[in-house]
């Protein structure tokens, strides 16, 4: 037995951060265990970043590889920037969970398995020809087999639950053990249980019993040599909550519509991984959120535009295939110069691709993917919580510049969570726009000289009836025009309007060396990995810096100047080099791509090592 290998001494180890993954069958409640752990870790002062890993199949047979569900979290001080490259602790509730997750575990890491589930049947379902707990296959890890099924049953016996209900509690047993391992309190969990199951005392009690049993078992059975304490983080004061990217985007839309004093009309067609934005929004009707599940993405896009025409904040959300379908509708919004937001939660393509995997390969489509000269702003959120900020910003720019705005998120951001300091409404900009003075001579395409945006005059406004559409318009009057010089002028104006936004967005900022050997530029969900990698490199004394773009069209006005201050520019992207192409084109700099298109985000180490090699090369 592996267990025998464990030494008896028990001690505390202080670490700056830790990465844990809960994995089990979809029925095993791993998402709940993981997110409860994350809550407690958050409340006890650490920064927590989480990532859920849903099974690839809707509901695979119990115990099968396709049915494994996982929840990973990394927690610790404020330098925890990602949900972790590799877990140090893996809780595997069955053989399939072990098999699917072992490859990513840190060598020397801890594997807590529910040994009761390592039956011949389950081993076969996981395509194990022999029991890995008995072969030497796990020798590079510290394996801790626990009879969780049995111990849980014993713990909950007093509550007299059905067999099924009793078995369901074992995620709390696992959670209890993990809480002990990381020296976290049980009390918040018990309180949560009391609130959650106040209508079902037996379940409440059983879960509590299992939780305690797990905790006590870990404490007394001396399975673990050490207990870990994790450094706490220094975060700005305030009230915090955890948000995923999709939740944050939904909140951002509601907040922006609220601050604009308008209804939110969100029209969307379900698609992974964007659907939760629709689900989330549809729960908040009392905020005058009108969700329309349309017949397809084309309808969603033009319905959002129609809603904007009528004075609401029109928004739509989708993922790759849906974005391709929205191309024509977005073109109409560009031409009619109506404010709307299109959130594209990128996933691995092309075509249907790998719908549950992450990728950033829609950037060039976002920038260029419409026929004709059809510029629109493109923003990208860097972290889950940043989805709030950037969604709000998308609405701000849309309304101010009378333009559709594309916001890029991705599968990773959508389901990853991080702490977000809850903002007070007053901290958010006021997005109400001044009405045109009543007497003023009106023309639908007469532009504000500063922003170049046309007035947003909505149906219901007397004496300002007008017609707009997809045909080229006469500058000012907005009537149809086929005049040659007018077309050139309007093309220029539309381009200048969007380009001018660079004056209205924060300048780009670097972290690290203000000039030096290498600038790592990223956008979107690579943020955490790049930031952590550059931190490490800086610690190691490298003259490097990190610049993260949240505005991809137009770029911040000072970007060119910054680029000129570094010998080399490296652009890690979950694509084949989209941003890299844009930078090379716009600034004629020899930006180098660091592409990764395997459906996964970067690991910190991948970036760090690549930079080391590059810089090594530089000095060679």
């Amino acid at each position, binding site marked *: 037995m592996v267990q025998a290998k464990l030494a008896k001494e028990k001690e505390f180890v202080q670490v700056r951060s830790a990465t844990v993954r809960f994995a089990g069958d979809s029925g095993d409640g791993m998402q709940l265990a993981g997110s409860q752990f994350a*809550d407690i870790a*958050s409340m006890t*002062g650490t920064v927590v970043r989480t990532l859920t890993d849903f099974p690839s199949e809707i509901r695979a047979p119990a115990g099968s590889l396709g049915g494994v569900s996982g929840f990973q979290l990394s927690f610790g001080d404020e330098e925890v920037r990602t949900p972790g490259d590799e877990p140090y602790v893996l809780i595997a509730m069955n053989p399939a969970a072990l098999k699917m997750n072992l490859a990513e575990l840190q060598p020397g890491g801890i594997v807590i398995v529910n040994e009761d589930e390592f039956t011949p049947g389950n081993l076969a379902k996981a395509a194990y020809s022999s029991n890995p707990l008995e072969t030497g296959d796990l020798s590079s890890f510290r394996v801790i087999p626990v009879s969780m099924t049995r111990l849980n049953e014993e713990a909950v016996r007093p509550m007299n639950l059905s067999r099924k209900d009793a078995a369901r509690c074992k995620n709390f047993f696992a959670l209890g053990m993990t809480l002990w391992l990381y020296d976290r309190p049980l009390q918040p969990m018990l309180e949560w249980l009391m609130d959650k199951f106040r209508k079902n005392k037996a379940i409440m009690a059983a879960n509590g019993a299992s939780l305690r049993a797990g905790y006590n078992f870990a404490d007394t059975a001396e399975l673990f040599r050490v207990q870990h304490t994790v450094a706490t983080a220094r*975060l700005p*004061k*305030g*009230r*915090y*909550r*955890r948000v995923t990217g999709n939740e944050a985007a939904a909140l951002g839309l*509601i*907040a922006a519509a*609220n*601050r604009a004093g308008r209804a939110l*009309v969100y*029209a969307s067609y379900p698609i992974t991984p964007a659907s939760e934005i629709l689900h989330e929004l549809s729960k*908040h*009707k*009392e*905020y*005058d*959120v*009108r969700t*329309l599940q*349309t*017949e397809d993405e084309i*309808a969603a896009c*033009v*319905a*959002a*535009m*129609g*809603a*904007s*025409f*009528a*004075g609401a904040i029109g928004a739509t959300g989708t993922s790759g295939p849906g974005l391709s379908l929205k191309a*024509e509708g977005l*073109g*109409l919004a560009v031409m*009619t110069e109506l404010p709307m937001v299109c959130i594209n939660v990128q996933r691995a393509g092309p075509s249907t691709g790998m719908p549950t995997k992450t990728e950033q390969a829609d950037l060039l489509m976002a920038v260029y993917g419409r026929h004709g000269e059809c510029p629109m702003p493109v923003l990208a959120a860097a972290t889950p919580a940043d989805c709030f900020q950037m969604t709000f910003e998308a609405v701000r720019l849309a309304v101010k510049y009378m333009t559709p705005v594309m916001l890029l998120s991705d599968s990773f951001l959508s389901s990853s969570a991080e702490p977000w*300091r*809850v*903002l007070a*409404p007053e901290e958010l900009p006021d997005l109400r726009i001044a009405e045109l003075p009543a007497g003023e001579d009106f023309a639908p395409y007469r532009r504000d000289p500063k922003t170049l945006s046309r007035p947003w005059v*909505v*149906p*219901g*406004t*007397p*004496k*300002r*009836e007008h*017609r*707009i*559409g*997809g*045909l080229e318009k006469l500058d000012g009057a907005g*009537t*149809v025009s086929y005049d040659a010089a007018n077309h050139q002028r309007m093309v220029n104006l539309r381009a200048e309007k969007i380009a001018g936004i660079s004056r209205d967005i924060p300048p780009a900022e670097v972290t690290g060396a203000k000039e030096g050997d290498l600038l790592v530029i990223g956008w979107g969900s690579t943020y955490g990995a790049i930031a952590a990698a550059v931190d490490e490199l800086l610690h190691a004394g490298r003259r490097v810096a990190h610049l993260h773009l949240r505005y991809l069209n137009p770029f911040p006005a000072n970007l060119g100047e910054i680029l000129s201050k570094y010998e080399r520019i490296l652009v890690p992207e979950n694509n084949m080099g989209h941003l890299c192409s844009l930078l090379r084109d716009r600034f004629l700099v020899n930006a180098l791509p660091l592409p990764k298109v395997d459906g996964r985000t970067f690991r910190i180490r991948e970036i760090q090592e690549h930079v080391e090699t590059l810089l090594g090369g530089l000095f060679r």
Partner: protein
Amino acid sequence: MSAYESECCTADQPDATISLLTKKDFQSAQEVKWCPGCGDFGILSQVQNVLPKLGIPREKIVFVSGIGCSSRFPYYLNTYGIHGIHGRAPAIAMGVKCANPELSVWVVTGDGDSLSIGTNHLIHCLRRNLDLTILLLNNQIYGLTKGQYSPTSEFGKKTKSSPLGTIEQPIHPIPLALAAEGTFVARTVFADQAHLGKTIEAAARHKGTSFVEIRQNCVVFNDNVLGTFTDADTRGDHWIYLEQGRPIRFGKDGRKGLAMRGTQPEIVAVGEGGVREENLIVHDARGASNSQAYLLAGLAPPEFPTALGIFRQVEKPTYDDLLMDQIDDAIAKNGRGELAKLLNAGTTWLVE
């Protein structure tokens, strides 16, 4: 024609000062650019006649269209308007209506626009019963792109894209609208201005999606497709006017009538062989089921005349009302949403 009596008004309460609006108030400054003789002119004119009667302020009216000759409609009406993209008008209109249910929203579209590229949106709009008025100008051809066959072109029609004749069965708008659960489904023809005007008015006054197929003549690419109508002598044999609550008769002096033989319609000669008016089908657009409407919609040449009028007219809750009801209910239940509450929801913790 009792079928055209108004029941309710789509939009806001009529405003006394509004009734002073005239046809002219609805004419925009833009020059109308249809071919001389195009059937669209008469339709525009009837819409401009109807609008002042509705008592809706001009600024609360929005016309939405797709692309096609017919879809240039919004430009010629001095209301708010969107000339959209091909086939998408009902979806655009859905956004408009849901953003502001107080607006009177109209969709003007063509047979290509909404029975080819846009069929999907049309169907889903109908079944949702958004409170919109949809006018489908059916000239059985693609006008704007200069004469290709459309989904309503007759089988075998020779056009630029079918030099040997089409090989497609045409689609019939009325049964399609019925199958899409349309609550107001009617057909009229550009050449009968009075019927056209009344039908448009009835459609406008219906609460819910009203769908009107308007048979129209494209003088350039599909002239005389309505020959049997424009020929006054034979019109009566080829066309039936449906009137709510009245037995269905047609032909010279109404000598012919429509009766049931089992589940199928048949033409009978009233007064001959013992057939009396009581044997005829009485037109009822408001029956419990759609079956009579389908039956009448299925009447087609050469065996049968074509029916004009309102096939179906029933009340169902509208999408926009239901949408706003859910919002109102949520507010009643949870209070009007306060942003701070939303942002602070769920598990939160304090960092001090």
